[in-house]
């Protein structure tokens, strides 16, 4: 078989039983792998109302047909129902774990049940071993990875949780290859609930390529496309993702102090340029990645990875903190403890506003850099004020009677783009299948960066169509499985060419877009069954009622209602956001 390894294995941690899950060629073609095939398998296996922490809930580690082949293909996707949002969720991570898992002979692992005591999985040469992890329980992610490599192989790639995952913090992340994170949606907490400390994968098997000559030519073309593109060939390489700080701030949509302002006066001091001047030790890159957006940095006290754009915002502008070292160290702590930095920062921002509003009598103050590290550590260990923060912003704000102060969609905290500055991004947030996420439909590309078409960011015209298009493309990339940054350099046709040379299957643009639409529609079906409706496709009231008074996004509000019906129509959903029977028939769902 070309592209796929042809094996997905189910491991029940309760009974220790393992069985292969057969996937027919037609299903592979219709869902590819990664996110798409993961969601398909998950939806077949688990009811939409399954409690995320229930032993019978499934947790999938998925690779795709392109994993371990072309540039940026070391990634993997973790799929399950999110304990943070209750939606279907997949969380993606870079590094080389995906390539190692596939090289071990598997397209995916489906993990069910709950082990009696802590375990880790060692996956190699078509074998899955369940090993004791009692002594690893309580260790941070770095110590865990080192210890498991000592027990298995120095070449093993390890995806693991830290104390946050063990303590089932609903936004606990999974860390692999030291500091690469499957950050969003709390997939780490699901590992914790299963007593699963880690999965270690040792690759070795090569992925069979259908058209070796075509693959070589296409790889050379890909290299040139990445090099020629200003974002992938220059900005991300030199300044990392934090290159966006000054750009987004200049557009007046850099969320500041829990999205109350769109311009952070100290943005320059936390920018990618500043990181390069003050903290940067070296650029770091994932498996076969020529971009290398990662930053290995050093503060006066410590060394670590990051901060990336979202983190520099979450612990910086969002909290009114402009001390780059403090931000970097909070990032290091999140990596070690296994926490999603966006939700962590979003929740602290919510706490600060709750306290300022007098709804909560606690010591959260804007710009309080001294306490940041402590809040992060307490959250991971669910102690003191951290036990409150571990609720996430939605539950926290509800608890203190001001739900409108949580900047979230469907329970997931919003990232670093204020939707008042980009109407398409607002629609993408509201309709994202996993909640307040920028990766489901990254409208910053057309609305700010002008790719593949430059759109007026304040207009709602044409936005429903292009949001749906971007969401579908994202689903295809996540299912292939590649890094989203490649989207800056290549389009759907090149993606089809990659799939053709690797798998031997011809994918037209139209077929790939149908694959994307099928996946997003299946996710929608799942979420509808989980109880989500049109009423959940919305944003916090702040974005509809409050305007910035300065900056280049001043006097703007989100005009979601102008777009939502049209978006549903483009998608083939009814006015309540439920896929129509004709749509399901067309997509074979």
């Amino acid at each position: 078989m070309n592209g796929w390894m042809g094996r997905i294995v189910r491991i029940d941690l309760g009974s220790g039983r393992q069985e292969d899950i057969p996937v027919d060629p037609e299903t592979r073609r219709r869902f590819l792998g990664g996110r798409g095939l993961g969601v398909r398998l998950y939806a077949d296996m688990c009811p939409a109302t399954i409690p995320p922490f229930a032993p019978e809930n499934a947790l999938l580690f998925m690779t795709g047909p392109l994993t371990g082949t072309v540039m940026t293909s070391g990634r993997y996707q973790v799929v399950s129902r999110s304990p943070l949002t209750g939606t279907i969720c997949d969380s993606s991570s870079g590094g080389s774990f995906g390539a190692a898992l596939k090289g071990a002979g598997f397209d995916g692992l489906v993990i069910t049940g709950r082990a009696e005591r802590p375990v880790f999985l060692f996956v190699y040469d078509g074998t899955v071993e369940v090993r004791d992890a009692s002594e690893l329980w309580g260790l941070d992610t770095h110590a865990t990875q080192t210890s498991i490599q000592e027990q298995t192989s120095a070449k093993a790639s390890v995806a693991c949780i830290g104390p946050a995952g063990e303590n089932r913090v609903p936004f606990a992340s999974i860390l692999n290859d030291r500091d690469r994170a499957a950050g969003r949606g709390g997939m780490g907490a699901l590992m914790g609930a299963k007593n699963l400390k880690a999965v270690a994968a040792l690759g070795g098997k090569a992925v069979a390529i259908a058209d070796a000559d075509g693959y070589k030519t296409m790889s050379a073309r890909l290299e040139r496309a990445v090099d020629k593109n200003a974002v992938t060939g220059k900005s991300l390489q030199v300044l990392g993702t934090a290159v966006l700080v000054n750009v987004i701030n200049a557009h007046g949509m850099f969320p500041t102090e829990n999205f109350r302002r769109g311009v952070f006066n100290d943005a320059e001091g936390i920018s990618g340029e500043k990181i390069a001047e003050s903290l940067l030790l070296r650029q770091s890159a994932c498996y076969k990645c020529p971009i290398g957006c990662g930053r290995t940095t050093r503060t006066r006290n410590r060394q670590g990875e990051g901060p990336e754009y979202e983190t520099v915002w979450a612990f910086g502008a969002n909290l009114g903190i402009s001390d780059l070292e403090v931000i970097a160290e909070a990032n290091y702590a999140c990596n070690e403890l296994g926490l999603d930095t966006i939700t962590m920062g979003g929740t602290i921002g919510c706490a600060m506003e709750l306290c300022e509003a007098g709804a909560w009598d606690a010591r959260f103050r804007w710009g309080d850099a001294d306490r940041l590290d402590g809040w992060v550590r307490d959250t991971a260990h669910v102690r003191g004020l951290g036990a409150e923060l571990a609720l996430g912003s939605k539950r926290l704000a509800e608890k203190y009677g001001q739900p409108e102060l949580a900047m979230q969609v469907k329970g997931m905290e919003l990232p670093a783009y204020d939707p008042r500055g980009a109407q398409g991004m607002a629609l993408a947030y509201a309709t994202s299948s996993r909640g307040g996420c920028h990766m489901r439909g990254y409208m910053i590309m057309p609305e700010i960066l002008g790719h593949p078409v430059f759109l007026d960011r304040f207009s709602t015209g044409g936005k429903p169509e292009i949001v749906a298009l971007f969401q579908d493309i994202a689903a295809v990339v996540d299912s292939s499985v590649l890094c989203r940054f490649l989207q800056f350099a290549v389009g759907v046709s090149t993606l089809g060419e990659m799939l053709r040379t690797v798998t031997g299957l011809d994918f037209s643009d139209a077929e790939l877009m149908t694959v994307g639409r099928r996946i997003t529609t299946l996710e929608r079906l799942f979420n509808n069954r989980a109880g989500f409706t049109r009423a959940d496709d919305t944003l916090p009231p702040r974005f509809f009622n409050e305007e910035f008074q300065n900056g280049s996004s001043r006097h703007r509000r989100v005009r979601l209602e102008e777009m939502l019906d049209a978006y549903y129509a483009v998608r083939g959903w009814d006015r309540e956001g439920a896929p129509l029977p004709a749509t399901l028939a067309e997509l074979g769902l």
Partner: protein
Amino acid sequence: MIDLDRETLAQMIDHTELSAHSGEKKIANLCSEAHTFGFYAVCVNGGYTRFAAEKLQGSGVVVCSVVGFPLGAGTSTAKAFEAREAVQNGAAEIDMVINVGALRDRRLGVVRDDIGAVVESSRPALVKVILETCFLTDEEIVAGCELAVQAGAGFVKTSTGFGAFGAFPDHVRLMRRTVGPAFGVKASGGIRNFKDAWRLIQAGATRLGVSASVAILEGLSLYPFAPAAWLEEEIPCHVCPSRFASLDKQPKAVYAYYKKKCLACPHREQFNKFYE
């Protein structure tokens, strides 16, 4: 409605790699892409003309070589020699840069003779005349176009891609109006995506000089999936050279000229209203 197919668009593209630091590997990739996607030509620096011609032999893709690039301020003799050598090395088209300073000085005879010398020494190759519109007023652009026609060139071209800004629909329209329907107009510089390209084609460009050629074709492929986004009306200022005028990069008189045009623009009020 965009009524353009992928093959027609590809045949309007000179797939371009002109950076100083590009080596044989990049030129080889450029040629491979041009062949794969059916672009009309590859556009390269003279040092790679023979290399590209050998790579593309029998492919149907022609080689375009630049001359007097990117400043255009050398002697006509040197340009003529460079052009002749490029043709001998396999170039079927020559993109030459005019003597921009002479045109701004109104030494029109010098400019005409400069173009004429290249046209003469390039035969039978087609000559495209790069005006470098970012350094010119509208009046000078018109004069440059007329001189190119008089000197026997086949195309006028907007930009080198190394100036203050690249191609704008306003300039392409003006050039098309000046040279008439039968003459070639090539837009180049800053064309990053399909919408940029489509805008310039609508303005009258018959050839595009781009390095993001594959991305542009892919943009056309995406159009059917979200046509409204691609057809959404543009804010006029986003595609106006006045907005991109730069005192750092342009002669101060040219900079002032563009800013003055901005002040008199009928779209100004609408634009201001649009953004408060």
